């Protein structure tokens, strides 16, 4: 089979056309969808459907190279992927049970839909309440505290009454010049 490259003169003609200044603006490359490009690479498109894809590929040097690269890759056996790549990719999707727990229905979404900062604040508040309650219970609770406060109040009141009486006796003697 003859696989010779075309004649030099043909190439010269093609390149001589290339150096002509364009008289009309060069049309912008046509966007081609991923599925259309894939279908074209597999030769599944009709001649009519393949036209726009081929025009897009012809107009874009990167796409021309990509088409050849992909055809080459798809046409031969591939080396195994690194284990790290496989492990990372597998971790993207969890087991059903994990996903149910993580979603957790409406309440779960309400709870876990909040920001992590809000969760931290909530946890801190709970810890603070536990510590305060624990300290309060260890300290004897409200009744003991009130009882102590009551005792203190009676003692003060008695002392205060005594002081008043002694003041009155002193004034009595002072008033008589004693």
């Amino acid at each position, binding site marked *: 089979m003859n696989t010779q490259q075309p004649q030099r003169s043909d190439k010269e003609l093609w390149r001589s056309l290339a150096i002509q200044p364009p008289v009309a603006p060069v049309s912008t490359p046509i966007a081609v969808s991923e599925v259309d490009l894939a279908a074209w690479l597999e030769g599944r498109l009709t001649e009519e459907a393949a036209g726009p894809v081929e025009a897009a590929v012809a107009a874009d040097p990167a796409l021309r190279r990509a088409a050849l690269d992909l055809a080459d890759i798809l046409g031969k056996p591939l080396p195994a992927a*690194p284990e790290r790549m496989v492990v990372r990719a597998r971790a993207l999707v969890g087991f059903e049970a994990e996903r149910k727990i993580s979603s957790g229905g409406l309440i779960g979404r309400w709870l876990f839909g909040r920001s992590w900062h809000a969760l931290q604040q909530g946890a801190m508040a709970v810890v603070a309440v536990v510590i305060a309650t624990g300290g309060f219970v260890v300290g004897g609770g409200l009744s003991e505290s009130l009882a102590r406060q009551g005792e203190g109040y009676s003692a003060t009141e008695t002392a205060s009454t005594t002081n008043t009486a002694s003041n009155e006796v002193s004034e009595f003697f002072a008033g008589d010049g004693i």
Partner: protein
Amino acid sequence: MGVAELNQIDLRALTRGDKRTWDAFVIAAAPLINAVVRRTLSAYRLSEDDVMDAAQDVFVRLCAQDFRLLKSYDPARAGLPTWLSVVSRSCAIDHLRRRRQATEPIDDVPEAFLGVEDRHIEKLRIPDGLLTARQILVLKYLYDEERDVMEIARLLSVDAQTIRSTHHKALLRLRAHFRDDRPDGGG
């Protein structure tokens, strides 16, 4: 498992988020995604970590938003391996673009990327309708990229003789057209 096994993946289970199907899909798809990402990034001298991240981007894109991209795949239009290779290439290019947005040492940029593009090659003044899209594509592969006839034939799923015939007909049309229409009157 390999590319052939990709066609045996239960797409419904996959897009439902079934863990076992996803794991089987990853094992079957990883060699292809790895190869495409490496080939796409090969000109840019990126690290192994970049290849890993770009490949991970492909998998993330496939399962993101409740497998939206995978759900959009239509087996009637293209085979899963081919579609996946095109998606992988797009993701690798997106990864490259994002990475290039950060400051990059000029030594890391391929020379071809910095060079001034030979625009005259891309601005052929060929009248609309003179050549078919396939004829232009064949001429560009042959002359602008100096690709082998067999390579082009493989890409277009035709035999080498068809490529030679397409080339011959295109040249006949060009010669016939420019013999009469050259602006310098040179025939």
